[in-house]
Each structure stands twice: as C-alpha cells, then as structure tokens.
C-alpha cells in the first residue's frame, strides 16, 4: 500500500523515520536506535506508521523498552498507534553500529567493537585463546589493554582494563 493511499504522505513517513531514528537505546543512552543499527525500517500501512526493529541479543531486556519508547515518541510527534514489529532475520551484528555510533561510544569511555565482516562458511571455530585483536583504551588511547571478563554489565559488553592508565573500561564485544 502506498503512503498516499494509506493517509500518510511520503513526507509524513520521512518525518516518522527521523523521530524513530532519534529514539535512544535504554542501555547505551549515548546511542540512538539508528546509531545502534537495530532500526530496520519505517513505513506506512493502513494509515499508521510501522517501525521494524531487531533485537541485539535473544534475551536483551531493552527490546521491550525500545518498543514502548518508539510508540510514545511517535505518538508525541503526531503518529498515534504506531506499530512496532520485530525482525529476527538477518540477525543483528555489531557491524551495523554506525561510524557515528562508534565515535559516540569511544567519547563516552566505551570501546567500540571491531569490524567482523561476513561470517565464514562452515562450523563456528572453537577459540581457546583470548582474542588477540587490539582494543585501544578509550580514555588514554593506549593499545596495551587486557580482557578481564568477556561478560559485562549488559549482554553486549565485555570488561577490560588498560595496563597503562590502569582504568577499567567496557567494550562492546563483537557479535
């Protein structure tokens, strides 16, 4: 159904998209949903706005907050009864975090994830050694950092420490 025949103009949908893009991630509030790469689409159907988002992790408790925030922000901007759908496929990857998002994370003391690229075909290889990739300290920039724990305060973050400035910091781990 085209936007026009549904009662919402192309401009309306574009405006709804801008509103949706600016909603913040409840667990990483420095990032908008657009920065995080979880916003998969905004369109009009039967006269109302339909927003599609994708979860970061299967158990991510933020997903429901995102739905509620999207609905209330859109309602406040003149789009009542917006529908929020979940798309599971393709599965979210940290590669979808935008350049802007990576810059904001680093500015707020959270090391952004490295780029993974497409997953290689075949079985997922067993990794017995800690990751060797360098994660620079977001505070002093030193490359001399170690992983303290692969699991941090939220599902998407690992905990690291800088060996030079000695500050612990969080790292959005690659997935």
């Amino acid at each position: 159904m085209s936007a026009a025949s549904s009662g919402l103009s192309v401009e309306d949908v574009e405006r709804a998209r801008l509103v949706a893009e600016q909603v913040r991630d409840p667990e990483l509030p420095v990032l908008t949903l657009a920065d995080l790469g979880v916003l998969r689409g905004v369109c009009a159907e039967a006269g109302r706005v339909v927003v599609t988002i994708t979860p970061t992790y299967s158990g991510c408790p933020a997903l429901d907050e995102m739905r509620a925030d999207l609905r209330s922000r859109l309602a406040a901007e003149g789009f009542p009864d917006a529908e929020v759908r979940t798309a599971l496929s393709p599965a979210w990857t940290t590669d979808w975090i935008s350049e802007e998002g990576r810059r904001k994370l680093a500015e707020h003391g959270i090391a952004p994830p490295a780029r993974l690229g497409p997953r290689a075909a075949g079985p997922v290889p067993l990794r017995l050694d800690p990751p060797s990739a360098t994660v620079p300290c977001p505070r002093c920039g030193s490359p001399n950092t170690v992983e303290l724990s692969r699991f941090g305060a939220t599902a998407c973050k690992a905990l690291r420490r800088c060996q030079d400035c000695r500050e612990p910091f969080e790292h959005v781990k690659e997935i």
Partner: protein
Amino acid sequence: MSWDNAYESLTEGHDDSGHWAFGTGFADALAGVGRDIPSNVDRADLAAYCVMLGDDALVFAQRLSEWCSNAPELEEDVALANIALDLLGQARMSLTRAGEVDPAVRPAAAPVHVPDEDALAYFRDERAFRNVRMVEQERGDFAETIARLLLFSCWRLALFERLTTSGDPVLAAIAAKGLKELAYHRDHAARWTVRLGDGTEFSRERMRAGLDRVWPFLAELFTAHPVEARLAEAGVAVDPGSLRPVVDDVLDQVLAAAGLDRPEVAPLPAVAGLAGRHGVHTEPMGYLLAEMQHVARSHPQAVW
C-alpha cells in the same frame, strides 16, 4: 508505572497487558514476527519441537541463574547470569513460537491473561516438559557446571548451525541469532575447562570429577524422539544423531588442550525407552520446577 512498594504493584489494577515474565515488562517475545508455518509439517509436531528447544534453554537458564551471587568470583557471577539470560531469551522465542503454531500446547491450568511463553513455563507439570535430562541436574560445584555448559553448548551450537537452514523460517531465524550467543558460551566453558584441567592437581581433579558426573547425560542429546525424526525428514528439524561427530570433534579438541581424558562412564539409561524428550525426568526436576513456578502458581492473578 510506579508504586510505593512492591506489594502495591502486585495488587494494583492497571491496563498494561505485559503481566508476566516477572519484573521485566516483557510482552510478546516474537511480536510482529511472521506466523506462517511450512506446509509440509504437522502443527502439533512443530509446536512439540519448539517446546523441546525452548525447554532445554529454559531449564538450563534456571539452573545457571542459581550461580548469581554464588560464583567463585564476581566476573563469573556476571558471566553465568549473562549466559542464562541469552538462553532465557532463546527459550522465550521458542515457547512463543510453539504457542503460535499450535494453541493446544498451552496448559489448561494457565489463567487466560498469561501469554503463551509464561503459560508454558509456569503452568505445566513435570511430565509436560520436554528438555533433555542433562540440563535439570543440580548445579554441583563450579567445575561440574562448567563441564555441563561445555557439553550442552557444544551440542546446541552444532544443532543451531544446522537449524539455520530449517524449512521453518522462524526456527531458522531463532537459530541464526542464538548461534552467535552460543559461540560465546562454548568458548567460555572451553577456556575454563582448559584452565582448570591444565591448572593445579586440585583443580584438575575437580574438573575431571565434574566431567565424570556430566558425561552419562551426553548420549541422550544424540537420541532422536519420533517428533525430531519426522521433522528432520521434512527438513525442519535436525536429526540429533547426526550431530555426534561434530560435537565429539570439538570436545576432543578441548579435552586435549586441557590434558584430560574422555570419561569412561556408562550413559544414563532411558526408563522403558523414555527420557527427557518424552517428559520422563530425574528427581531434581521436580524441585527445580517447584522453585521456578512457585510464585506464578501461588498468585495466578498477580500482575507485574
């Protein structure tokens, strides 16, 4: 929503439909995901398979959560809780899918306002759970938990790798998502196995004993229930027997790095041919359910 105390929040009437999935405000785990099912499968079979996959994750999540505030170090508390949360998320999606595919899986005892995933988690009796018996066992010491997590995550990762091409698009999507999480779980368990096995004489002995206790439950993971066999034939499920070489290969790599031998212990037999997938469980299962379901069953009309 805000109340002055938790008790008030239980009794206050409100119009929020997100009643259950305690304390999270969670609503439908698959909100807006397509409801179609493949035309060549029986709805009851597909729902039963979703329940099997969901129950494995749900019951193991419950056991792993017991480590929260009890693990040997704070980082491990957080790690095991995170792993449990991932599995709980996978369980929620599978159980929601089960209810969507065949409403008959929903237990009659569940109040109508409770969503399918919670109806299945909190209002089924032991015999209706379809998880493998490995995941319901008492957590044991840390080494035993690590041994169980190693075996379970190696197996589930291999299973999910294959399920990514399932003929059911929702199962394929759940698997593609869970796969990445399971890779982290498996690596975590594998590294601890090496660290303990290749550590001191004491840690090595504890790790060896943990593997000995968990190993009898391994064979059941590769035994196909008729539902799994039928759906595997239809290209929707995976024949678990076919996963054995892949899982064995990974376990051998980990054991070699840890300097540990493959335990020589007899598999836990089925009971007259019936095991977890048929709803026949071991003694710890009833206690686990009592703890997990107690609040929901005592206060079936509570809202959160």
